[in-house]
């Protein structure tokens, strides 16, 4: 018996080392999660010392609130649009920087193209606000080439604000896709491309019939990850448009923040946060399912 325990203890040693970290991480993740769900079942949390338990009332009220659906639609548009932009730009640039050019030039381009990724959301928001200002460099350039006559309010025009956000988000988010795709490209055997060359395939044939099938699992995986991250994105939207003008760029994350810290409606904010959690959980399960299937294959 003593030997059994000794063997168990010996084999469990790595897990003992992990335990403190797992405990702290688990606490930091699970306690806020529990509290948000709890808050969503009460009224007047935080602002009253004895909030009232209301069950699912906050959820039924939310489901009849038009501002929630508006934010949900904006979130869907922003998320899908951003992910498509990230994929198109990221994959295109990955193919370009994977070209057979001078190694130093390749390194230079890869370093430059990854720069948007290293800026924080605050810096990105400030840079783009200045560039998209009516008197900013974007309007100046467009006016110089005759595309516009008068300066456009890119972030203040309801018809342009979401497009501007998508542009900013695409600019900031493509490096992750580019790097992931680039590393995947290194794993494709050259023989496949050589065989395609022999068969007379051009660039697009090779891309569509060799590159994409080989990297489909990678594309699917990073797209799902990007979907999860972009769905919850808050700083970029809040710092560029604040959800405006006229709530045309209000997404679920900014709605949550506004309800909590502008309106002090913490119960309603928690309810919105739980819906974000549930939707994100669906995406996460899809991602895990994909990864499991990849591992089994």
């Amino acid at each position, binding site marked *: 018996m003593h030997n059994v325990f000794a063997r168990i203890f010996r084999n469990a040693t790595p897990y003992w080392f992990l335990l403190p970290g797992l405990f702290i991480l688990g606490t930091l993740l699970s306690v806020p999660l529990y509290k948000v769900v709890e808050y969503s079942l009460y009224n007047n949390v*935080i*602002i009253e010392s004895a909030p009232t338990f209301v069950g699912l009332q906050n959820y039924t009220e939310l489901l009849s609130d038009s501002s929630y659906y508006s934010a949900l639609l904006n979130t869907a548009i922003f998320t899908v649009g951003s992910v498509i932009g990230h994929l198109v730009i990221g994959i295109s640039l990955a193919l370009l920087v994977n070209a057979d050019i001078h190694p130093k030039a390749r390194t230079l381009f890869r370093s430059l193209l990854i720069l948007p990724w290293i800026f924080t959301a605050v810096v990105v928001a400030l840079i783009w*606000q200045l560039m*998209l*200002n*009516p*008197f900013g460099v974007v309007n100046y350039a467009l006016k110089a080439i005759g595309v516009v006559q*008068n*300066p456009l*309010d*890119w*972030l*203040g*025009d*309801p018809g342009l*604000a979401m497009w501007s956000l998508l542009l900013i988000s695409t600019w900031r988010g493509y490096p992750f896709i580019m790097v992931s795709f680039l590393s995947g490209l290194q794993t494709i055997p050259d023989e496949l491309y050589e065989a395609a060359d022999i068969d007379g395939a051009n660039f697009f044939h090779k891309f569509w019939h060799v590159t994409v099938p080989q990297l489909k699992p990678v594309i699917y995986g990073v797209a799902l990850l990007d979907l999860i991250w972009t769905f919850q994105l808050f700083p970029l939207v*809040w*710092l*560029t*448009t*604040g*959800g*405006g*003008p*006229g*709530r045309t760029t209000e997404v679920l994350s900014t709605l949550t923040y*506004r309800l909590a*810290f*502008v*309106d*002090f*409606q913490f119960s309603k904010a928690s309810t919105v946060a739980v819906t974000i959690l549930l939707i994100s959980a669906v995406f996460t399960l899809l991602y895990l399912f994909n990864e499991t299937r990849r591992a089994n294959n």
Partner: protein
Amino acid sequence: MKRNIPAIAATMLLAFASHSNAATNIEWLQWFAAEQNAEFYETLVDEFEAQNPDITVKLITQPFGKVRESIVTNRAIGVGSDVLGLNMPWTSEFLELKILEPLDKYLEQDGNGFELEKLVQAPVGKIDGNTWMLPLNAFPFAMHANMTLLKQAGFDTPPTTWAELKTMAVAISELGEGISGIGMPFSSQPPSNGPILTFLPLLYTAGGRIMDGTTPNFDNPQVVETLTFLQDLNVSGAIAPGAASRTGGVDLEEFIAGRTGFLISPSVHAAAIVSRNSELEYQLVRVPTLNTKAYRVHGWELGIAADSKHKEEAWKFVSFLMSKEVNGRLSVVSSALPGNLEALSDINNSDPIFVAQREILENDESVEELRLAPKAVASWSLMTEEIQSMLAGDQSPEEAAGRVQLRWLNLIKK
């Protein structure tokens, strides 16, 4: 020596413990030190502690945008500060949340460093029969004028009426690319307070108000008249393009850079304008009037947390900050007028900006409505959105006023 070390250590521990037990620790949550000379505020704390060795003050400094949230959330988890830096528009919601301690019994005490009647009165007016905050300083909303652009447009003096403002702003806008008559910060970005920076000061010069007691009253003739004036300015080309994405910060920066003719904002911004662009020919004047010489009064306020465990000590610190000598020094450092008006006589300041502020303070009607405004901070977002829609031509001033009123009342009901 070795044999004495444990004894020395024990003695030191006992001394420390006894000192810790004797001194009461209070916290002062504010944003003042973040926007100005932080060392000055630390010096004030040191001075107070020297005069009151049984009280220690911990300075908690946060950006302005975080203080309001922190007051509410810290209180919820029981870690709130004792002395609070406050903003008058927060009053109504803080009273609803029972965050503030009534100050009346402290004001009646003997030995206070100031007299209530000698303070700027806007923040001290009673609500529900009590006084809830005191004015650390005060600054009127005013208009900053770029005299260089004004002279280039053919004018010698800043406007004094709405009609003159429109004429001069339009003329300045026609000076060239990138130059605008006046900026209007109606961005939805937080704190989306454009309406209270620009719209309210103009409204008060028309004798208008947005409140009827404690009830929102946004759809009234003076509000519509002021909104119509804004729309007229916009249609005339006087307002800088991009009002719907322009924040107060950008508005100020554009003025400092010399690209805007006029800026309506707190007069305390004069310090930043002068220090950041000393070559700007600049003048501070009252907001152009329609029919009333009135100004929106603003300032930094002090209050005591209702759940503070050291209210008496907190009051001693507040009383210290409100005393004539300290308040006077605070006024000079913050480039604002003192909350304790007795300090005015001691401030030897012939600076034209200070003189202009004082002239407005002493001669014009002061107006402060947001103390009584329910859900004041959230209401600014509503005003901003409806004004955005109005300036875009999607609704009339009457419709904008009506929509703000309706949405504001619905917000209060929630």
